[in-house]
């Protein structure tokens, strides 16, 4: 199989996994779920690092740099803000115990 066909296969299977994993999520968690998923889509950061690492002139450097910055904002901000939200979903009792 060509790499492209393998890629398509992986994509389709992963999409099915996504549908199966997400279908039964309670509405309460929709916002953190979306925000966490959003952070995962920042995986494009791998491509951004590869692009910025190329030594191919200043135009490529500029594009690569922008790609790394924006992807990093997506990843770092996304995971952090999701954690902040989920922190609040803990029961007050748990919070007290943690603080002690």
């Amino acid at each position, binding site marked *: 199989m060509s790499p492209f066909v393998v890629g398509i296969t992986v994509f389709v299977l992963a999409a099915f996994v996504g549908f199966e994993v997400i279908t039964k999520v309670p509405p309460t968690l929709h916002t953190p779920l979306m925000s966490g998923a959003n952070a*995962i*889509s920042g995986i494009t950061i791998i491509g951004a690092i590869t692009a910025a690492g190329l030594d191919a002139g200043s135009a490529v450097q500029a594009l690569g740099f922008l790609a*790394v910055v*924006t*992807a990093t904002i997506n990843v770092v901000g996304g995971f*952090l803000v999701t954690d902040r939200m989920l922190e609040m*979903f803990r029961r007050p009792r748990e919070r007290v115990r943690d603080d002690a």
Partner: protein
Amino acid sequence: MIALLYLGSSIAFIVGMRRLGGPRTARSGNRIAAIGMLAAIVITLVNEEIASWGTVVAGLIVGTILGIWAAVRVKMTAMPQMVAAFNGFGGIASALVAAVAVVTSDLSELPLETSVTILISTVIGAITFTGSFIAFGKLQGIITGRPLLFPGQQFINAAIGIGAIGVGIWTLVASEIDGYWILAGMALLIGILAVIPIGGADMPVVISLLNSFSGLAAASAGFVIGNNALIIGGALVGAAGLILTIQMTEAMNRSLANVLFAGFGAADSAGGGTVMSDKPVKRATADDAAIALSYADSVMIVPGYGLAVAQAQHAARKLANALEERGIVVHYAIHPVAGRMPGHMNVLLAEADVPYEQLLDLEQADPQLPQTDVVLIIGANDVVNPSARDDATSPIYGMPIFNVDRAGTVIVVKRSLSPGFAGIDNPLFYMDNTLMYFADAKDALEETQAALLNM
């Protein structure tokens, strides 16, 4: 070997996403996904032959600082626009990855499927970028929340869409780099034009859909650089975003096409009319509200975006506590489209330590309303509008609502009689068992609680 290490990251994403779906496991799920991401970044830094470390490290540092700054500062009420902004950054990053692939290689020498995925990654990423920032602007109030419509809009959009396909084919056939840049520009324009005509009340759907798009952009970037971690992560997010999008449109009893293309809530499309606004309403004060509440056995609080705007979630919780001390049963009825993104209201109430068990969704809360003595509506409007049930000419006709008019007494806390985000008048306000309490949500709740203590 390296591919196996990346597979570890992909597994972390799947496990993390699964755990994000359960209240008890969600936080650890997010962290597992984050660790998978960190591992993928480290693998890439070690494995790729990076020629210009300065650019990579500088980019990582700048992005990290900006990301932390945004995530720590954002208020919970502003979460929808924050997610929109992060979406946009992810989208443009994928488009830039594709752009670098074009610039550093010769289109005529690339295999056709690689060229196609480069174009797809660019187009979806660019649409996600501008679309997300228009959504950000609408939610932040920088751009009007009303749909912006102009004559021939759909014709122009269709022409640009077809034109983009033409330019894409030309770029591929002629291996023309200029065509690529024209296509990228058109995609940026399409993102703007696609979101501008959508009303603020429909932004939850738009954000869900753009979330799905940012995943698809990442997946197609994965095809461009030949990395399965991007394909798997992107496909997961694409699927998740799509499911949430469909759930949101179902909660509004509308099709996705209707949300995207109907210009819903535009000034002149509001059926049911504003003619009712002359009718008298029963005005109430804090004392009236407190008296009604104190005689109740059961109270249902219906929060809407007005509660979020007024930062009144803590005041609502305190009033609920005061009622519970009097032996009154209090629940919260959360409509699927309450707030500005799916589950937004739940986050705000969790911030105020409202117990999870008191939050009821539409199917749980609505059957209880006929037995409920007092319904307290705080800054909600369209989700309690009986027009959705009774008036076939109303734009929201058929949307599932809370039938609050079937409860004993309805107290509506609202700043003014102005129609809600969708711009539709609400007959509920003029009914005999409805008391209108015109005030800022937070002030109203605090004053009602004070009045209750004096009784």
